[in-house]
């Protein structure tokens, strides 16, 4: 009996010590982790918009989040956009309900601060207050609109789409005319040596600069990637004087309307990414048009 008490006591003590050590580590790292994640996404977005060391981002660059929800009221369905609006100097959020045909339905103020709006749980709590019982809402996705000096610089869309193995998490960036600014692959589980090549610059950068018209009919071709084009696409490997301005302009012109060259022996992964990007861009372009016209008509002063 004595022994049991002794063992239990020892175990409890060690568990408490271990738990507090882990708790301490957790509290010390939690903030850094969040900040890191935030910076990671932020840097990816900045990079996609074309800013970098030699082309610093403007100081008034802002990323504004638009959250899309699906709202059900009985058997009626609406799209709910939670948009940041200008209200004096402060930023506030409004929920704009739009029916499936794109007509305005309702406008609701969401009591939430800009900081808290980034947390899914806080958003849900705030929305619960304005979208009362019979209405059900479900989060769909978030789109980021980059603005500077009151003008839109581009759209950044973090999305996931099906790949060859599992889902691919990527970020698609478009300019206000829906021309593709770039593609970043964040997470995926494609095969090493094969589908994994989708993270390579020579594949991702092929999407850069494709016009919206071209994008709609973008295909994957099973042809070897031209050597010169590949060199051009691998921007991080550029050396001083490798390309003259004219050469760059010429390559850009030559391949502007080219289809996507498939990764050798991984046509399925290449096609999955291409289809995913196509889908993301098409859906977003369609929706932002509808949303814009509603905002204009209803005189809602969105922050973007």
């Amino acid at each position, binding site marked *: 009996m004595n022994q049991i008490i002794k063992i239990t006591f020892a175990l409890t003590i060690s568990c408490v010590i*271990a738990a507090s*050590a882990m708790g301490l580590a957790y509290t010390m*790292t939690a903030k850094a982790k969040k900040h*890191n994640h935030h910076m990671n996404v932020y840097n990816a977005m900045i990079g996609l918009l074309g800013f970098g060391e030699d082309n610093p981002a403007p100081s008034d660059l802002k990323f504004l989040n638009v959250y899309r929800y699906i709202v059900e009221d009985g058997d009626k369905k609406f799209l709910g956009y939670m948009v940041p609006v200008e209200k004096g100097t402060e930023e506030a959020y409004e929920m704009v309900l739009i029916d499936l045909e794109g007509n305005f339905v309702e406008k609701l103020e969401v009591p939430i601060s800009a900081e808290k709006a980034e947390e899914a749980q806080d958003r849900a709590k705030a929305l619960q207050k304005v979208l009362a019982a019979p209405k059900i809402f479900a989060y769909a996705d978030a789109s980021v609109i980059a603005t500077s000096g009151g003008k839109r610089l581009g759209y950044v869309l973090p999305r996931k789409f099906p790949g060859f193995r599992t889902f691919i998490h990527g970020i698609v960036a478009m300019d206000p005319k829906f021309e593709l600014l770039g593609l970043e692959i964040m997470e995926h589980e494609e095969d*090493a*040596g094969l589908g994994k090549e989708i993270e390579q610059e020579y594949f991702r950068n092929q999407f850069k600069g494709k016009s919206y018209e071209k994008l709609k009919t973008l295909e994957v071709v099973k042809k070897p990637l031209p050597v010169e084009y590949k060199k051009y696409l691998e921007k991080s490997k550029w050396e001083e004087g490798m390309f003259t301005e004219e050469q760059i302009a010429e390559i850009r012109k030559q391949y502007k309307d080219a289809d996507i060259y498939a990764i050798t022996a991984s046509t399925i992964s290449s096609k999955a990414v291409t289809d995913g990007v196509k889908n993301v861009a098409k859906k977003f372009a369609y929706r932002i048009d509808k949303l814009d016209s509603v905002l204009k008509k209803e005189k809602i002063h969105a922050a973007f």
Partner: protein
Amino acid sequence: MAIKEKTNKQLFVDGILKENPIFKLALSMCPAVGISTSVMNGILLGTAVLFVQVCSSCTISLVRNYIHPKIRIPTYTLTIATWVTVIDLVLAAYVPVAYKAMGLFVRLIVAFAIITMRLEMFACKNPLPKSFWDGFGMGLGFMFAMMTLGFVRELLGSGMIMGYDVLGFKPLLYFVLPCAGFVTVGLMMGFFNWIEVVYERRKKG
């Protein structure tokens, strides 16, 4: 076993060569096969294992007189799990790129046989400095083995070393594929056995 008479230096060197956790003791094979696709991966996971091994060894060595023999193993597990959690959190917070590269394996350090084994065989019987050197040697031995494997696989598989293109082409894609890990480890083990035979022969002759 003559472990107890060994000096600190011997303990350290043995961990790297004679009792190399991967090539000699054949423990903790999972990461050796799994993520030894590049030298960098080897260094990263090696550092993590080194940290956990040294910290756990020191902890156990410090409290070795207070551990009740009946709950020895649970205590080891708890100690290792705590240190693994700590390094897991730290890596995720400060070196997210490395954390992503290693995936699940950082957290799986908790199930690596080598660490538990060193605690049971060495740290619970020896004072702090000795346990420290033993743990340090074992950790470095693990790192060394991982780096060797990573070197072979990275060079043959993608023609690169530490991410730098040295060959300019990819000689044998097979070696970066998951399935190559087994064959590489098997061949390397055979190679080390052979080296040992040659070494012994030289010493005798």
